[in-house]
């Protein structure tokens, strides 16, 4: 008997079976690899911390070495910081120059998660400030879906990210409501309000650059308020 592949019941049945079979295969693979994916994400975050706090070149370290360095030198503050105005919580990572359990360990930076919608999808990163919150120490973006070769350079272009390390943080938000200016002309001198707070945009990725500037300013604003409050309420936790 010849199969009538054009009959509506056949078309519907065929589409349903094909969809069910392939979807089941993908779901099985997804579940089977979920643990490995979670482990990889943790390694990526640890690598980002090694790079952010300048503990060495993560590309030359094994996963075990990276985990050991981060385990010894980086401490997550618990409970997290809370911005009293917005109620937003921040995970805070305290970074030390050596094993934090050693008596002479010196605090070198605080880091906290930043993130927002980029050009295509969500960008997640970590921003570090010095212990006085007087300047940005660095920024990394371990997770994003920006265009490879364009906006994707937020994770691969170290020279661009190092531009944030020169940004000084004023005592409070200035009238313009920004801590960092990403893109635009380079400020000609100190009379320019952007002086000391300017970072070049990524060439050809204005959307990504604008997005990064936008969520860094927003998150930094909330974080500094949360840090100020924590300094009043539990200063010992921040050492």
């Amino acid at each position, binding site marked *: 008997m010849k*199969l009538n*592949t*054009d009959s509506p019941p*056949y*078309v519907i049945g*065929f*589409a349903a079976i*094909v*969809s069910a079979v*392939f979807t089941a*295969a*993908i779901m099985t*693979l*997804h579940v089977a*690899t979920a643990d*490995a*994916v979670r482990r*990889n*994400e943790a*390694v*990526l975050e640890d*690598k980002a911390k090694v790079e952010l706090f300048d503990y060495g070149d993560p*590309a030359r370290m094994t996963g075990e070495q990276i985990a050991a360095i981060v385990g010894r030198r980086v401490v997550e503050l618990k409970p997290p910081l809370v911005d009293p105005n917005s109620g937003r919580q921040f995970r805070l990572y305290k970074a030390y120059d050596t094993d934090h359990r050693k008596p002479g360990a010196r605090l070198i930076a605080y880091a906290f998660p930043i993130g927002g919608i980029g050009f*295509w999808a969500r960008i997640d990163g970590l921003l570090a400030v010095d212990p006085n919150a007087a300047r940005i120490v660095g920024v990394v973006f*371990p*997770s*994003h*879906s*920006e*265009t*490879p*070769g*364009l906006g*994707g350079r937020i*994770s*691969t272009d170290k020279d661009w990210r190092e531009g944030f390390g020169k940004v000084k943080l004023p005592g409070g938000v200035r009238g313009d409501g920004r801590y960092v200016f990403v893109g635009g002309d380079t400020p000609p001198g100190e009379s320019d309000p952007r002086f000391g707070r300017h970072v070049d945009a990524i*060439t*050809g990725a204005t959307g990504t650059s604008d997005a990064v500037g936008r969520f860094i300013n927003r998150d930094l604003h909330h974080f500094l308020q949360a840090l100020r409050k924590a300094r009043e309420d539990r200063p010992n936790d921040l050492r």
Partner: protein
Amino acid sequence: MAQQPQKPVRPFGALLQQAWGENPVFRQVLGICSALAVTNLVFNTALMCLGLIWATTMSSLTVSLIRNVTPRRVRIMVSVLIIAVYVIVVDICFRVLFPEVHRDIAAYVGLIVTNCIVLGRLEAFASRNRPLASVCDGLGAGLGYSLILMAVAIVRELLGFGTLLRGTPWKLTLLPTGPESWWRPWTIMITPPGAFFVLAIIVWAARAAALRRPGASQEAAP
């Protein structure tokens, strides 16, 4: 109704035809988006190429196997579903095995689903030919794409960074890049405009080489 089978195609001939004679990049000008975007590092490019070779080969095999029972009116939907499944498999494998490369090229791995090369081969060949010939055709299209992308990537990484396989334990530094060195990296090569120049030169050279074949002037004309 299923398509009538055409005259039998020699599998190896189909592979060579796609890999060179009808190369998807320099003859059909397909897959240019990813050819421009992911080719600033050789390793990333190699993984992208493997992903596309896998997707074209396996999709061609699957579509060919079910070609006689696939309703004509939903064949495109089924083809896209099949491509998507194999691309998701690639995506998951990269996420597990090469998480950092996945972060850098994930956007383009996902876009293999809509790559004209893959859907084009399914529609033009696999949906009307036998499995072995279809596998060879898909493999040839993937290899043809990879041939050009790897050539572009080698030139771009070498001139842009002075290295090959940067970001891997097998990195080769072939040109000095220090501040005192005689060589200055060509920054333009690691940005998208550099890809336009290199791709154009390689396409020009490949088409010129194709034209040198006896009796090729007619078929190689744009």
